[in-house]
């Protein structure tokens, strides 16, 4: 039994990280129907910012992490302005390909600047784990889980109640109509990117505290997993990203523990295929017919 609970905790930890990153995917997709493939690489930008801030500038770990989150948000805004905004009225496929291009650009820039050798994440976190008999919960698991839940709730409240959140929803429903109603759609979209990338920045810190190795391609795999989590839960739906993330993490952990470590990815993708077969809009997604 304790094995089962420990494995569940392992799954929740990985799941919380997927969920945090998935929130950013979902936000951006919800507003402009763009899968921002560069999202995972923002994770990497955040991680390298911390490495530079501590290693070169000698800042304290907390300051470095806060700065990295701000840098991530600024990157989000910059990428949106430079790469996506000029293409807003082009076909969807152009933006999608640009997103892949931005991802490649970021990875190769990092390769050039930081070399491909992985660097250790310079924030030590040694807090004794919580022991409940045979069950052991590490501090980072509690922290990650707590942060992702709080952020999900804050985000949901923000989107449903605040004025900026309402304009986001309006833009998401119909961009032209929102513009006619006097909503500044450009600013709203920029804000969405800033929030999405802030979440990636926070996710980056939590990811690196758990897996403290920083390399130019570190964002790809969590990026893909988080994307699956977002699709699984219903892309565009905030609680969906959360649910998808947790389901994915727990499924992975249990497959590794009880079936086979090699099969964990196969099971994850299998779940995705099955869910999409029966509910193409994801678990919590509403099926809205595409307007013609």
């Amino acid at each position: 039994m304790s094995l089962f609970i420990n494995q569940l905790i392992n799954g929740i930890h990985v799941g919380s990280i997927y969920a945090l990153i998935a929130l950013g995917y979902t936000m951006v997709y919800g507003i402009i129907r763009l899968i921002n493939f560069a999202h995972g690489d923002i994770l990497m930008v955040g991680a390298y910012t911390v490495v530079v801030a501590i290693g070169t500038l000698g800042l304290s770990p907390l300051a470095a992490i806060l700065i990295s989150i701000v840098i991530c948000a600024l990157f989000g805004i910059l990428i949106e302005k430079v790469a996506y905004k000029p293409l807003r009225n082009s076909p969807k496929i152009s933006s999608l390909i640009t997103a892949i291009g931005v991802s490649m650009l970021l990875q190769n820039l990092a390769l050039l600047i930081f070399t491909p050798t992985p660097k250790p994440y310079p924030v030590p976190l040694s807090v004794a784990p919580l022991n409940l008999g045979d069950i052991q919960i590490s501090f980072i698991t509690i922290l990650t889980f707590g942060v992702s839940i709080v952020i999900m709730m804050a985000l949901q409240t923000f989107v449903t109640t605040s004025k900026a959140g309402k304009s986001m929803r309006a833009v998401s429903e119909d961009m032209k109509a929102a513009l006619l109603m006097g909503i500044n759609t450009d600013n709203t979209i920029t804000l969405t990117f800033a929030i999405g990338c802030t979440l990636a920045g926070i996710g980056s810190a939590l990811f690196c505290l758990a897996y403290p190795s920083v390399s130019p391609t570190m964002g790809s795999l969590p990026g893909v997993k988080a994307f699956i989590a977002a699709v699984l839960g219903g892309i565009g739906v905030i609680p969906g990203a959360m649910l998808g993330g947790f389901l994915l993490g727990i499924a992975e952990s249990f497959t590794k523990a009880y079936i086979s470590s090699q099969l964990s990815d196969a099971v994850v993708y299998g779940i995705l295929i099955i869910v999409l077969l029966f509910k193409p809009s994801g678990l919590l997604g509403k099926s809205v017919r595409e307007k013609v």
Partner: protein
Amino acid sequence: MKKLFLILLSIAMLTTLIVVPAEEVIKIGGIGVLTGPYATYGVAVKNGADLFFEELNNAGGIDGKKVEIIWVDSQGDPAIGQQAYYRLVENDEVVAILGAVLTGVTNAVADAAAEDGIPMVSPSATAYEVTTGRPNVFRTCFIDPFQSVMIARYMKSKNYKNVAALYDTGDDYSTGLYETFVNECKELGLNIVATEAAAFADVDFKAQLTNIKNANPEALFLPYYGAPAAHIVKQADEIGLDIPFIGADGISSITDSITDFSLLTNVIYSDHFNNDAAGEVAVKFLKGYEEKYGEVPTVSFSATAYDTALVLTEAIKKAGTEDYAAIVDAIKNMEVEGVTGIITFDDHNDPIKSAFFTTFDADGNKVFLERVDP
């Protein structure tokens, strides 16, 4: 006018033809993983070999000819490694290959090299089959079966009864070590109470480690490279698994991937070389390395790469020609003192040498435990 131009052009072409052979350079091809997560090993190898050739050329080269090593990055990918090989042999016309670094790539390159019969020496490919049936392929590091046997014996000598293993199914190096380890444990009567595997490039091992902890082993066999091993050691600490983690040579670069060095005191591994157990050539090597790169070598493949360069140079010298077969023959019958000890090759083209069991202190410095002779 056109004719004049053609004549001039032909003269220009002729002169280039004459100039090229006038440069007295012996070219050696270097293949290694210089980028990506395993770059630490490739760069260590490149540094070691470059140091040797620099010293050699400063001392006059081989019979007055300078030796040039042309490096190509394999990116750790067997296909790219093989392309690098063809480029070096066909375009650069190298006389020998130094490399590759990772077992998977070396296997692919050795496949091609065996067809051509070109002398090839790897400083670091430890999987058994790399030199099997390839009379022109050698190595200067010890082999995986040997390491696994030594590790199992080491565990036995510490009176462990129940041990566990965690390995990477997507990696030749890891699975190779694991398979021999299992056999040797059977022979020695060690129980393997838990066997867990992970897929290549995984960063989360907590599910496997939790299963291992549940089985209560006294030690964990960990045939991993440094970067993933750093994740494993950290996550083991998080779930409260506090037993010795015993790995092979690949784990030695773990210090580059970890910030909390106190976690490393549980890590023990078999190494090709230890800076504290060094002979005369080794002292010279360590001094030269520190002067050229400003640090002591952290990965022992710098030492085996230096020896590889030495083996190739001695063989080319002795052969006195750039003929493949003559150089291969010279390597086969060589006995030379290198950094990692006296090097001779057995029937399987493997060097006959000792293993140095090593651990770390809480500051990440290597601590020499004991030397185990074959």
